[in-house]
Each structure stands twice: as structure tokens, then as C-alpha cells.
């Protein structure tokens, strides 16, 4: 069973649930942020996009204090897979479960668009289905500029923790394809253990041909594979 955490201000929580259900046949349950425990039988946790607590302070800075985050942290420390998209990525960074931070977009404006990302790390539980693939995914955020100190970036690179990079449609590195000024064009990272990942693009909004494509299933499907395989 997948748990989708619902913070006040989460917007893509239901979308994530519908995508898992309709495209992958996976049941997901919304878990209210005031819960102190995850539902029994939870084998993956998703932190959805949105504007938790309005993002009036730094994005994700309030949500990390939500009661449910203690349970999410314990789940992650026990090796359970935790995926944060957009605001969920921001929350995971604020909570210290992922390295780095997400700053205001370089262009200062909110950006809603389809972008291409190259899968830099192909491994369970998030990207096993997509080794080296170029995925077309939507982004929609005002604060998606990934930041980490240069030495930290070098360390992440060496440790293979950089999961996704913005790229040109053919996969080539292109600064013009970096929609928000992210350091090293980073669109997604994972923790050292590899069981916690965050990304700014929205795989749940690329889950069916009718609404723009199915490339997001490479990520969500990998997670499903990992869970079904007992990973």
C-alpha cells in the first residue's frame, strides 16, 4: 500500500493517487499530516506537490514540522522508499532527508512547462525502469532552483546521488534547457542510501496519453516494481 501524505495546501495529492491507481493499478491512501503513524502495511511514501501551509515561509519549512513527518523519517531510516515531488522535494530537503535546498527560480517567475530530463542514476527503487532515458515531464513551480555548495555537488556526483538532470530533447546538456537555474541542471536527487528521492518535475502528471504523455510512469512504475519485488 502506498501512502500519499496530505499537508494543508497539498495540491497534487489526489492526482498522485489517481495516477497510481489508473496507470499502475496501485492503491494509495491519503494520510493526513496530523497523523503520527503511517497506516499499517505502508510500503512506499509519497510527498506530493502543492503549497504546504501556503509556502508563506520558505517552501516546505512548515510542513517538515507536521506530526506525520516523524513517522516518515522513521520509515525512511528503516529503508522504506520515500518520493517527494515538487513541494514534497522541498519538504524532504527542509527535513534534512535529502541534501541541498530549493531556491526561487532564477527567472523569479513561476514556470509551468514541459521539460526534458535525463535519468542519471538507474537504480531501484525510483529509476530502475529508465536507465539513461530522456523523459518528458511537466514542471510547475516558483522555487525549483536546486542549490548545494560546490563541494557538496561534487560529493553527490561521486556518490551517484544525482538522479535527474534537465537536458535538451535529445538528451544533450544544454543550459537553455535548465528552466529554473538549478545547480548542475539538477532536477532530482536521492539520499546516500538511495531510498529517498526528490524531484521538481511531476511524474504523476505524465501518466496517461490523454493529458500529455506517460514518461512519468518510468519513475512511478519503478517504485511499484521495487515494492512488488519486495524491495
Amino acid at each position: 500500500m502506498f501512502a500519499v501524505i496530505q499537508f494543508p495546501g497539498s495540491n497534487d495529492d489526489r492526482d498522485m493517487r489517481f495516477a497510481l491507481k489508473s496507470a499502475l493499478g496501485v492503491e494509495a491512501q491519503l494520510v493526513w499530516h496530523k497523523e503520527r503513524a503511517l497506516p499499517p502495511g505502508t510500503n512506499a511514501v509519497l510527498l506530493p506537490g502543492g503549497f504546504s501551509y501556503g509556502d508563506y515561509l520558505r517552501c516546505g519549512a512548515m510542513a517538515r514540522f507536521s506530526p506525520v513527518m516523524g513517522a516518515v523519517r522513521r520509515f525512511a531510516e528503516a529503508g522504506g522508499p520515500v518520493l517527494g515531488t515538487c513541494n514534497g522535494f522541498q519538504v524532504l530537503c527542509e527535513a534534512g532527508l535529502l541534501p541541498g535546498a530549493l531556491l526561487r527560480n532564477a527567472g523569479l517567475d513561476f514556470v509551468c512547462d514541459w521539460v526534458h530530463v535525463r535519468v542519471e542514476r538507474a537504480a531501484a527503487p525510483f529509476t530502475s525502469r529508465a536507465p539513461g532515458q530522456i523523459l518528458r515531464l511537466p514542471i510547475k513551480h516558483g522555487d525549483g532552483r536546486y542549490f548545494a555548495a560546490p563541494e557538496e555537488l561534487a560529493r553527490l556526483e561521486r556518490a551517484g546521488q544525482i538522479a535527474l538532470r534537465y537536458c535538451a530533447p535529445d538528451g544533450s546538456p544544454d543550459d537553455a534547457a535548465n528552466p529554473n537555474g538549478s545547480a548542475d541542471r539538477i532536477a532530482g536527487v536521492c539520499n546516500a542510501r538511495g531510498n529517498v528521492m526528490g524531484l521538481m518535475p511531476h511524474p504523476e502528471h505524465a501518466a496517461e496519453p490523454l493529458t500529455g504523455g506517460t514518461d512519468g510512469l518510468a519513475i512511478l512504475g519503478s517504485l511499484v516494481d521495487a515494492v512488488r519485488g519486495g524491495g
Partner: protein
Amino acid sequence: MDLAERSRDAVRGDPPVDAALAREHGLSDEEWKRILEILGRTPSYAELGIFSVMWSEHCSYKSSRTYLRTLPTKAEHVLVGPGEGAGVVAIGDGLAVIFKIESHNHPSFVEPTQGAATGVGGILRDVFSMGARPIASLDSIRFGPLEDPKHRMLLRGVVHGIGGYGNAVGVPTVGGETGFHDCYRGNILVNAFNLGLVEADRIFLGQATGVGNPVVYVGSKTGRDGIHGASLLASAEFGDETEAKRPTVQVGDPFTEKCLIEACLEAMRGDALVGIQDMGAAGLTCSSFEMASRAGTGIELDLDRVPQRAAGMTPYELLLSESQERMLLVARAGEESRVLEVFERWDLDAVVVGRVTADGRMRVRWHGATVVDIPVDPVAQSAPICDRPRRPPADLGERQKLDLASIEPEGDPQGALEQLLDSPNLGDKRWVFRQYDSLVLGNTVLGPGGGAALVRVRREDGGATGKALAMAVDCNPRWCWLDPHAGAIAAVAEAARRVACTGARPLALTNCLNFGNPEKPEIMWEFAEAVRGLGEAAAALGTPVVSGNVSFYNETAGRPIFPTPTVAVVGLLGDVERRAASGFPATGLALVLLGETREELGGSEWLALRRGREAGLPPSVDLAHERRLHGLLADAVAGGVLRSAHGVSDGGLAVALARCCFAASIGARATLAEPPRVEALLFGESNGRVIATTGDLPRLLALARAAGVPAQHIGETGGSRLALGREGGAPWIDVELSRLAAIWSAAIPRRLEGS
């Protein structure tokens, strides 16, 4: 001592109420007399405030009501027409859509970001207060020229406001229009549309039924913001003192709104709620009066229980505050705890502030004293109706005069096309809509940038219906200035045509009527003419008017905006898998022009940009043809014959072809018969035309013939160039798409650079 005196005694600092103070509140001497008659005494200060907002143009529609009554509002599929928060239309499967468009012009000019943001917030509340989950927003925004730094700032501010609110609240902005004209230099327009989805038997109305039922206040605390927004800001012209009105603009809080949406929808699931309404314009006052009036009841309020943001607020301030993100609920007696629990879970204030009474009076208490005691119906329903004088503008004949023979023919069609594509009105609006989340909720099939938006219909539990809703917003203000009757007809026709281009059948419309000062006979004439046109078109196209909003006094220093009756049409597509794209979807398709091109250059972009004239009569609209065309499009899409369809509008055929090419960077080659005037063929804006593509030309032509719609095979899609040529001669236009696209894409960004 009567109520007014006792109230003054209780509320120290309230000024004495007299005719002069009433005048300062925007009430006429006649209205003042009427108030004295209704009450049989002098009103208290709070009561004066109530009359002033309830009888303001914004809340009472006193200048417009007589005309609005003439609009067609009924049809079998219309479940709720105008008068409620928004209109409700059945779409089958036990579902209905609730939609409305509303203006927030004045606040957005005074404070663009908050003004636009709260416009979005207000329209959302109108929709979800009726039980619907808001699933799609559109907007229509108009500014002065971008050469004016103030208007660059206003554009940025408004777009930030719409995006900042809509994105955070999690409702996609799926389309809209952005226009520029000198007439908006002193008064921009911000019209916000929202559509929600509801189970047809779970619609909530704004009514205070059930004597003894508790009245519940939920949402944000009440502050001093927005007092007299409706009466002073929305119901008067702008002058030099506009800046001083900034405090009357409210501040939006999309986070609270998001929680309010979820909590209200949750509270509506059981049977604990009997009525609910947004506290919008005129706040607590308007919502409680309207709810009591609709139910034929009264309401007793205890202001001391109202959650307050500031200390020491007076009854006057509490009753007139327009603080955002507040709702008034009526719960079933004994069930209120179930309602309160839901809001508590969402950490929202929810307080019982009064109860429904049987005596038809609004009674308000504060600090132990009764400060308001007035009969509901005379305030809510008997607002004065103004039969304002009307007169065509003296220069109307001059405006409409256009001798084509005196207009120099176009010598450089390609240059003309490039200039049109570079104009902010016809240029790419990507700079605007890229700042809006158009994808959240996961239902966006066709997003911004095309003709109409197309949104899949998915039930609250995620269940599919296979259907989709198409929606488009439109107005050509220049046409409305030249001929408000014809302009309004064209607005309905074009919005419906764009909806029909997806394959959807237009169902109903909502309108936002933006005009100048109705006290001027010329403005009132324009208004009456526009409403007449709106009604004719709505009737002819089978799209009743289910909701709307009137915004008068859109003028500054005596200079009115062009009449701008913005129309949003909503249509239903039965099978979302069978739909037409907006632009060219593939190469090698046959290009077909549906409809007839006439020699119509009056009011065109070409005439304005290339010859510096805004004159003539707008292109005619044949509503019977229009209806046949819409039927043909729906049938052709359902039959799988149509691959794409794009209406021909501003900038004419050449611009429409270019836009079809841009969608997927697919070129086209079209050949047309040599016309008497090439600019009329390439850039004329004759109505009732659509550029269609098909892989089955004979069937499309046969369907068109059967429907009685003129159809002409003009070329093929493919290649990387747009070529428009005459039969057997050199082409008028033959250019690389990349060149045109670069010009088109830069139209807005290049004007914003360095500001």
C-alpha cells in the same frame, strides 16, 4: 431614544447620520428618502453602511437589471440560472457544471497583484460555495499599451496575482485572453472565470432556511480591509485620487482558500448544511441579507462572536469588511457540531454567530446593544431601479464611416503578417500562461495557447466519464466600440466557435459586462445595445446565459473604456478520445477553409496596425450559419473526420494559418483565388470561418455540403514554410515558419525587457 440614537450611544465615535453623510456614501437623495420610509426613522451608522453597499451599483445592479432580464436564461439542461452565486448546467451522468465570470477591474488597477488574486479567490468561492469542486479557471485581462511602463508593471502584477493565487489554491488556469489597447490606459480589466464540477443532486444554494437554524461563520478572521470596496471602488469612476483608494483593496490568502475549499466540500457531504454563501462584496452584510431574502426568513447576528483580526472594530466595520476567504453557512439545528468539527480539522475558524429567524428582519447585536434592525426584503430586493437615459454617441456615425476605396491596398503581405504577429494583441501569450499552473488536477487535455481549453470530466473519486468540457473566453472591444450590438453577437459567436472547434457542443455562457459610467447616456446606450446582441446570439446559438456580472464605471478622468462584454462559453464533448486539435497535428493533411470570406476590413487589426484607423462596421455575423458550422464541427469530430480546427479571428486567415503551423512546427501551403482586395482575403476578419484539417477530404466536404456550410479545399499541411499563394501566380507570402515563430514568440517578452 430610537435605535439610531442608542446605537450611537453604544458605538462611540460613530458620526451622526444625515442626508449629507448618505451622499458621501454614494446614496442619492431619493435613495435616502426611501431609507427613511423603510425604517420610519433615521438609520444607525451601521445601517447606513448596509444600505449604501446593498444599493450600490455593484451589488444591486440598479442600472442594468432591467436589461439583464431580457436575456435568455432557460433550457432543459440549465439547472440554476442567474441570481445564485453561479449558474448550473447538467452534463449527464448525474453531473453538473457550475460556472461564472466576474470582474475585479478597479482593485487590480489600484493594486494589481492583490486585486487580481482576490478576483480569482472570489470567483472560486462563488463556485465551491454551491457544492462544486473548482476544476478550471480562465481569465480575460486587458491593459494599456506596453510602451507605457505603468502598464508593463500592471501586466506583471496581474499575472503574478492570478498565478500566485490560482497556483497555490491548486486549480488549473487552462486558458484565457490578454489584450492591449489605449482605451484601458486609465482602467485595466481583470475578468476571472471558474468552472466547478458537482453531482447534480448535491447543489447547495445560498439560502438561510429553517427557523432556529444556526448561522455559522467560517474562514479567515474579519479585518478592516476592503471596507466599501463594492460601493466606493467598484461603483464610481477613477480620478486623481485613485492612490488613496488602495486601502479599499483586499489581500488574498490562497492557503486559507485551499483549506476552505476542502473543508466546505467535506462539510457538504452529509446533510448537516442547509445553505452556504461566500462573503464577497459587502462581506457579512450582503451574504446574510441575500441568504435570508432567498429563503424568506430573517437573521439575527451577534457581532461579538465574529472572529476578528483587529482590536476595537465597530459594527460598521465588521458588517462592511471585505476580508477574503470567509463563508457564511446555515447548519441544521443540532448538527452544527459536525460542521464545526470539519473546519477544526482544517484549522479554520468556525463559529456560530447567529440564527435564522421567522420575522424577515436582520437584527444585529454588538456589545449588548442592537445596532441594526431592518427588514430584509426591502434592502435585498427593492433596491431602486434606475431607468437611465440612453443616447447613441454623437460620433458613432464618424466611427462607423469607412470608405474602402480610400484605403491604400496592402503592398507587402508578408511584412503585414509579420507586423501582425509581432503585435501584443496577436503575439504569443506564452509569457503570461507559462506562469499559471495549467496541469494540476490532471484533467487538462488542451491547455492554454490554443483556441478553447479542453478539460476531462473525472468524478471526485477519480472515476472516468469519457467526457470533456471545452471552454473559451472572448471579446473584441474594438468591434463593440464601433457597434456594441454586433460586437456582442460576435463575442458569443467566436467563443462558441472556439468551443465547437474541439468537437464539443456549446452548452451555455456566462458574461462579464465591462462598461463606463452608466450615468452617461452614451454608455447606457452601448450597454443596452450589447445586452440586446448578447441575448440574440445566446438564443440563436442555444447557449443560455446562466450567470454573469456587470462592471460599470470603468473610466478615468471622464475617459471610458471601449465597451467590453466578455463572454465565456462552455461546451460538452461526449467522447474525449474523439476531439480536434487546435493547430496542425500532422503533415500531409488536407487544409479546408469552412465559411465564407467577405470583403470586411472594418474594425480589423490590419486596418488599425497597417493604416492606423479604427473605423468601419465590424464584420457581420450570420447566426444561422454559425449554428450550422458548430453542428458540422461536432459531427465531423464525432465521425473521426476532423483532425484539427481553428477559428479565423483577429488578424484574419494569414494569422490563423500561422498559428496553426506554430502549434507543432508543421508548415502549410495554401492556394486561393485572386481576390479584388488581397488584404481582405489575407487579413480580413469575416466571422463564421474555421481552418480545418482532415485525412478524409471527400467525407469532410460531403458533411459540409450536407450541413450547408461552404467548404473550400485550399491546400495541404507539411514542410517548414508557410506559403499562401494565388492560383497560377507568385505567392503573396512564402516564409520559413521559424522566422514567423520567432517574431510571434517575442511579441510580449521583447516589450517587457528592461522593465
